[in-house]
């Protein structure tokens, strides 16, 4: 069997069992036959024409302050130092606030930028270049106010662990278009990884085939990507794979088990990954102009380097790239104050974010790539007194932005009250965000289901409405 035939066989036969029936349901409203039993490495049809084919999700772990970045609240300045009224605090729960905290006005200067006249603070000067490509959603709401559960919620639609993450749902639903890289890749930067680690990109109850693959720093981003020493390099590994496959094929003849064919194909894809992943990591082919645009220092891991890597990944047909950048938790304590630590974080992302959008756009990739920027929650209008005055976790209204595939550019959606406590129009719950992301990828969020424990589970649980107002 030739390699090509193998691959086709693999794609046709790589059954993952339980999920396939639900999948067929997704694709055809029950009209198509349920024979569609595809593996994770093959692209699968969507429910309707997708606006976006791939996603880059820039996850700012810790919860960036919308009040210092995008959601300008001049009235809050007037109340600076005053206690919020009981009315403002009614029914609210906070992680660390004790109830005596005073309101804290914006600590940065704001201005209007771009043709769209978007308000932004002085912390993100480079964003002025891309602001007309962005769609700001200022009224995102979540359910939980601690980092771990909130990150799980933003990724899986549940505050409890055990559900599949967004990227896993996508891989399960529409598969991967790459035959030499995983369909769902996670990149990390910042002093440490995000809380809850692998649970954020877990496949939950879906087969592990669909879990996110965290890339590591350095030339071999995937675990066990290098051929071990003493095997004879590429030629030796090739001979090894050939022999393993030959032996496996003899077993197919005796057992008739098609799963062995899948194993043969998995080894062949693993072999391709060994070549394609280092090639991916090698920036030698990038022009100095591009390197400078992102602000990448060659050989040094950074958020900027991950943004460039994200572009290279989607160019190679990876479906979902998620970047985690940590330490946005600005309570006011040591190493987490608004005055000096927040500007360090924004300096790390400002140029790179702008570069990513500009680079995608000039390569014609932005139109069918969805870029999302945001954290697991926002920060309170009240100050939190630690060594300095910071802000606590706020779950009722925070800002994210989206760009590219299928969302309106230069737009601002949703509005919060004068002090930034809560939405006054167009609240967007995390479930709505998930529904919208799936919609942009061509999936009806109510139809992407997986039968587990007697129930059809969805990313959006039993909630979620597509945010029609931001669709282009």
């Amino acid at each position: 069997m030739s390699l090509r035939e193998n691959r086709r066989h693999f794609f046709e036969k790589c059954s993952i069992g339980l999920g396939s029936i639900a999948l067929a349901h997704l694709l055809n409203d029950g009209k198509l036959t349920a024979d569609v039993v595809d593996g994770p490495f093959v692209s699968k049809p969507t429910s309707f024409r997708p606006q976006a084919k791939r996603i880059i999700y820039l996850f700012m772990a810790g919860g960036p302050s919308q009040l210092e970045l995008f959601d300008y609240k001049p009235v809050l300045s007037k109340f600076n130092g005053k206690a919020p009224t009981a009315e403002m605090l009614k029914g609210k729960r906070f992680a660390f606030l004790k109830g005596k905290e005073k309101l804290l006005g914006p600590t940065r200067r704001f201005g209007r930028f771009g043709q769209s006249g978007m308000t932004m603070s002085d912390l993100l000067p480079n964003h002025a270049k891309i602001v007309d490509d962005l769609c700001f959603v200022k009224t995102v709401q979540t359910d939980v106010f601690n980092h771990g559960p909130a990150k799980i919620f933003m990724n899986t639609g549940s505050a409890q662990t055990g559900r599949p993450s967004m990227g896993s749902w996508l891989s399960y639903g529409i598969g991967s278009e790459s035959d030499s890289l995983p369909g769902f890749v996670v990149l990390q930067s910042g002093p440490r990884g995000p809380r809850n680690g692998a649970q954020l990109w877990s496949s939950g109850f879906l087969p592990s085939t669909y879990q996110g693959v965290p890339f590591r720093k350095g030339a071999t981003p995937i675990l066990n990507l290098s051929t071990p020493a003493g095997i004879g390099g590429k030629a030796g590994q090739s001979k090894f794979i050939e022999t393993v496959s030959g032996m496996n094929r003899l077993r197919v003849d005796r057992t008739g088990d098609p799963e062995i064919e899948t194993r043969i194909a998995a080894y062949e894809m693993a072999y391709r990954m060994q070549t394609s992943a280092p090639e991916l990591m090698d920036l030698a082919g990038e022009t100095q102009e591009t390197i400078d645009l992102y602000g990448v220092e060659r050989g040094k891991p950074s958020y900027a380097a991950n943004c460039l890597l994200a572009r290279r990944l989607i160019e190679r047909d990876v479906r979902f790239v998620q970047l985690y950048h940590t330490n946005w938790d600005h309570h006011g304590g040591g190493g987490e104050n608004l005055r000096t630590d927040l500007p360090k974080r924004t300096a790390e992302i400002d140029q790179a974010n702008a570069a990513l959008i500009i680079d995608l756009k000039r390569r014609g990739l932005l139109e069918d790539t969805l870029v999302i920027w945001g954290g697991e929650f926002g920060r309170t209008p009240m100050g939190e007194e630690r060594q300095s005055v910071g802000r606590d976790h706020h779950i009722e209204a925070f800002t994210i932005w989206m760009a590219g595939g299928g969302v309106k550019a230069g737009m601002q959606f949703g509005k919060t009250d004068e002090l930034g406590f809560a939405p006054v129009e167009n609240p967007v719950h995390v479930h709505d965000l998930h529904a919208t992301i799936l919609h942009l990828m061509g999936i009806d969020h109510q139809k992407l289901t997986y039968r587990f424990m007697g129930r059809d589970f969805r990313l959006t649980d039993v909630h979620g409405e597509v945010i029609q107002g931001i669709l282009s």
Partner: protein
Amino acid sequence: MDVDHFIGSLAFRPWKNRILNMSLPSCLLIYFLAFGWGPLTLCSQVVAKDELDDRQVIVFNRDIRPLLSDRCFQCHGPDEKKREADLRFDLEKEAKKDLGGYRAVVEGDLDHSELVKRITTSDDDQRMPPPESGKSLSEDEKKLLRRWIKQGAAFEKHWSFQGIRKSQPPKINLDGWPQNEIDLFVGAKLRERGLVPSPRASSATLIRRLYIDLIGLAPTVEEVNRFSGDPSPEAYERVVDQLLASRHYGERMGRHWLDLARYADSNGYANDGLRSIWPYRDWVIQSLNDDMPFDQFTIEQLAGDLLPNATPSQLVATGFHRNTPLQTEGGSDPEQYRVERTKNRTDTTGAVWLGLTVGCAQCHTHKFDPITHREYYQLYSFFNSADEPTLTIEPRGEVSARIAGKKRELQTVLAEIEKVKTASVEEKSKEKELIWKGLALQEMESLGGASLKRLPDSSILVSGKNPPQDTYRFTINLVEPVRSIRIETLTHPSLPKGGPGRAGNGNFVLAELKIQQNGKNVEVVGGRADHSQQGYSVVDAFDGDLETGWAINIAGGKLNVDRTAEFVMARSLSGLISLSLTTYEQGSGYNIGRLRLAGSSGIASQVVPGLSQLVTRKNQIEKEMRQLEKTTSKTLILRERSKPRESFVQLRGDFLDRGPVVIARTFDVLPKATKEGDAERPANRLDLARWLTSSNNPLTARVHANRIWQHLFGVGLVETENDFGYQGELPSHPDLLDFLASDLVEHRWRQKRLYKKIVMSATYQQSSVFRADLSAVDPKNRWVGRQNRYRVEGEIVRDLALTASGLLSRKMGGPPVFPPIPPNVIGTSSANHRWPTSQGEDRYRRGVYTAIYRANVYPMLLAFDGPDRDNACTRRSVSNTPLQALTMANDAGFMEMSQALGARINGLVGKQPDDLKIDSVAAKIDFGVKAALSRLPTSAEQEMLAEYFKSRVVYYRQDSGQTKMLVGKNDPVLAAWVAVGRVLLNLDEMITRE
């Protein structure tokens, strides 16, 4: 050499030896002839479409309930909040009731049954299910519903809620195939469908299957040789008995159970620090090895603490429900996460013993199953009154003796301290008045978050938060030398009862006064107070013990007056010092409310002789005891509170939104427990555990028997092993399931016996070779016309490779081990992850002992579908991915195993290590394949491996650099054998149970 020559000597009928060498069709033909079961007919497992006619007898549970449940219950089912038109189909009476001149279902009357109209109409507004529901009925499904109504619309109780009936196996002649009752049930079903079972697997396959299923290890070459060399008909049974008696049995079956118990070695969530609960893991393994009856196994795990005179082992067992994730992130609400853990216990109990998805009723009444929202919280209530302590398992032997010694030493020192304190308590008297000067406070803060305010009289008033324990820290500049410090505790109208303390009665407890200069402690050597409460001497405020302190309540006098205490330091101080006052941890905040500080150069009181030395000694002993206790093991257990917590329905599952009060009770749809509790003694976990294992509970035995079947076939008789409710699949062999369930109960819940019964059946011993005739009509092999062939779990992948390489350590139990891990896997997140790589044989322990961090699972186990450890995993998914291939091929751990296997092959006893003679190479390949796969290679395999070996010898002879990298010396032949070993470990069959 062919596999069948190797099979050798087991008593086979002649045709069995032939079959593997034939093409499938011809072998089947011979097989059918041998069995004489008549011609092969293809016939569907469900009602064949074109055979739908009115004579077909409709069985409600098989044909109708799944339809109603899946398409109708969401709006016409148990959940009254979502119910439309006040109509429900889950209850017969309700489905047939008068809806105002018409009825949804009229027995035997198609024309008057509204249901029939609604499912057949073409009017979108009328049609059911409504188009917007996304659900629909096929033509055949509509026919089924019509036929059901025509035949009288009979309802049946859901199968799994009916009592278990011990069914007699069908009386059927299967030409000597059956080995026991199981085969009669399975054979009859196969014959109904015109199918025949598969032949018995080869002895090589059988021994490997038994080893993997019962102990999770591959047989060694010697064990394979012994089995294949034993011609007696009892050879198979002997292996079975030997494996069931093996101590590795508990490790293998424990692996299954620990998945259900959601066992991990860390706390989960963001911090994810290590926890010590491995004694529970060892308890599981030991109990399974002891064949503890499953009812006792259940009771001890759910309620061991409630058993009369509970033994330490029974307490350890309650760790089952301590395997919940624990949120330790700052700022989280402890009650919220206690509630989450309690829900997790509730859901896990439902999944593990009842096979029901009870978690669906957390927020609302179950959409499909008859479990109400209220009933969920009744079950929750059983778990709501458990505390979560840590049990120290008393050490034995020398350590225990040393701890006892230290304890005695501590007692002596404590007694001496007490004596000194009593002797030195001195009432403050006028004669010894010193000159006191106010102190220059530079900074002050409350570590507990209270507000400290300086009043005009230089006193400090405390307000705001009153935490259970607080420390006030003052930075003071001593402009002239100070030897004594005075603390006046003062009343103030803002304080409770006027103070001077902040507790409800105005009292406080000053546990410790600490003075530091340049970061070093300055000892306090004496003190006196104008009044000390009985048992709360002022000396207690400088004895280095936070559990004793100075307080001021007074018998028969007034508590709320100003008080003074004076303390003497070991030496005079000047310059910057830090003074901290820590209070005694009490629920209601025994903190000081107002105080004033002063200093004096004089000595305020007599120096307490030797107290400081005694306290130092005491701290030293305590430290040594802590060190010693670290070597003892701790584990997490449950302990029932003396006074139960009140439980409420949580509206929409929100613990802050309380509905009605509920008491612990089981589900109405199931038979009641004998003891459901009353006002005097509410039902508790022990009652629940007894109810789960009582003879009238129809679910537990079925769920567990199904699980045992699943362990031996990869899938249960009920395919949805985690859902025995309306949405679950029906059992493929309901009578067989009931037979096994009642067999389990009748034989006192002994599990080993049931495992043996199943593995002794001809059904189990069938070949797993795929058959075109079966695949065509039964692609999922639900009728078990052959065994299943599937990849083993991640831990067993590791165990099999370790066995083949000869590196396996058979050491059992103890703290989790940390086998080598690739770099930069651990320590990259914010969590408290450490990976102190194990040394020596601990590097090669079985997978079940590998340390598991919930938020960072050992990469190899993660790649092979290691489950989420936060919830019960009832069956692992089996994926087949390139990341698995990369792990097997390139991981340093697997390379080490390849090197070990290569060295074993090269050094085969009786053959020269570097002998390249054809005979010798062939013998070595035979040995390698047997070590890895428990069989001999076929001639084609022998040829392929020999060719690969030769090519590697040529290669390594040319490249000594690579050779040395692989085997550490320039030995091309050894390197080539390592390459062969690596191929063997990477074969599909290596990690597959056939």
